[in-house]
């Protein structure tokens, strides 16, 4: 619990920076494509966080043969993140399809313009 741990735990800090950058891009950008890019960065930050947890010092990747004598890194977070990556690309493609349908309707992907059109349609 000493403050020198901030230096030892530098990978977590990078994961947190990526998280915050992802949220910033999602909240502040008006272009719909940039929002999905921010979502991808957010997902990558979460995946990086799990992979950082799994690492053990002086350990080798979790592939066992009869010559294995050293300690292995924890493979359970690897398994969860493997499927998370493939699922993230499938859901990103789905988000892009929805953006294309919005584009066909409003001919723009600027969030402010779309909101203005929607408010005009309501009135």
């Amino acid at each position, binding site marked *: *619990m000493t403050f020198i741990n*901030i230096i030892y*735990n*530098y*990978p*977590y*800090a*990078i994961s*947190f*920076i*990526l*998280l*915050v*950058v992802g949220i*910033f891009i999602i*909240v*502040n*950008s008006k*272009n719909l*494509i*940039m929002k999905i*890019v921010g979502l*991808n*960065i957010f997902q*990558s930050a979460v995946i*990086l966080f799990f*992979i950082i947890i799994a*690492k*053990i*010092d002086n*350990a080798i990747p*979790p*592939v*066992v*043969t009869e010559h294995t004598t050293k300690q*292995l890194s*924890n*493979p*359970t*977070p*690897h*398994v969860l*993140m*493997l*499927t998370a990556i*493939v*699922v993230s*690309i*499938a*859901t990103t*493609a*789905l988000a*892009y*399809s*929805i*953006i*294309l*349908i919005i*584009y066909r309707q409003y001919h723009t*992907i600027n969030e402010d313009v779309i909101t203005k059109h929607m408010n005009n349609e309501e009135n």
Partner: protein
Amino acid sequence: MLVDHFLLISLLVLLSATTLSLIVTRQLIIVSLLMSFISVFFTIIYIILDAIDVAITEAAVGSGVSTILLLAIIYLTKSYKISIAQYKILSFNGILSIISLIAFLLILISVLPFTPIFGDANNPAHITNIYKVYTQASYETFGISNAVTMILGSFRGFDTLGETTVVFIASLGVYILMQTLLSVNLSKSFLKTIHLNENNESRIIQSAILLLISVMLLFGLYIQFHGDYGPGGGFQAGVVVASAYFMLLLSAPNSAINMILKEDMIVKILSLGVLIYILTGISSMIFGNKFLDYAIFSTDIKSAYHTGLFCIELGVGATVFAAMTIIMSKFYKLINNSL
């Protein structure tokens, strides 16, 4: 290892610099370039952090499919630039978001003195030592070298079934949504060649294809079937084979394989993958065992588990291959229609 730490620090600094420069970029093509850089950095970082299966997946997915989709949607929505008004940072909402996000980041970093040390073997993530049970049992009892494939296929097989179904549903959603946008007849646009006035482009792709396609297909199938003994498995192999098939589609749309492997066949492969997974589970139940218990496939338990993992990885590989192919070919058809 000092070299490992130095490499990791430099890669992480490059990664954060690239991500921060994404905020101020005004052109979306450069955004796609930076995103593929980020994916390459992630791949190398995962290798340094001993996550080799995750590194293969990130390399195939992030640098390959993700960049294609981003470029495709930039072209289809004709939004090449981000105007300065689209980042309203100086409004009230913008300043509020910056202040709250910086506060959030400081709170997260203030937790760092109390988290377990990076690389500590007494991490709470390792504390039950379940991973030692997994890795030992994986090799000694079942003869599977790659602990990640063993956990994915057998110890946490249910989760993988759910994830494969999620990929299936997302791809089906893309298929259905794109059908409303593709108003022309499917078979006509599918056989449409690349325009003759861009002959040079197709020549380049075709000559590159001859060298690459056989290597990529062989590599993809190698990853599929070698997943038990090294990094690999169905997820990675599905993406690599889909990339190879999509290259074939791009370069030679009239080739013989497109007459045989049509669009509806690929949708059938999509559902066939999930079906193979479920049938492997149910076939254990027929002989009295539990769902997804592979012990009945053979008398020797090692070959039984090899057979069981082979079948479910086949299902996962088929679904992921069909999902990625549908996604990429739908975007390709949309671009072809608007040319």
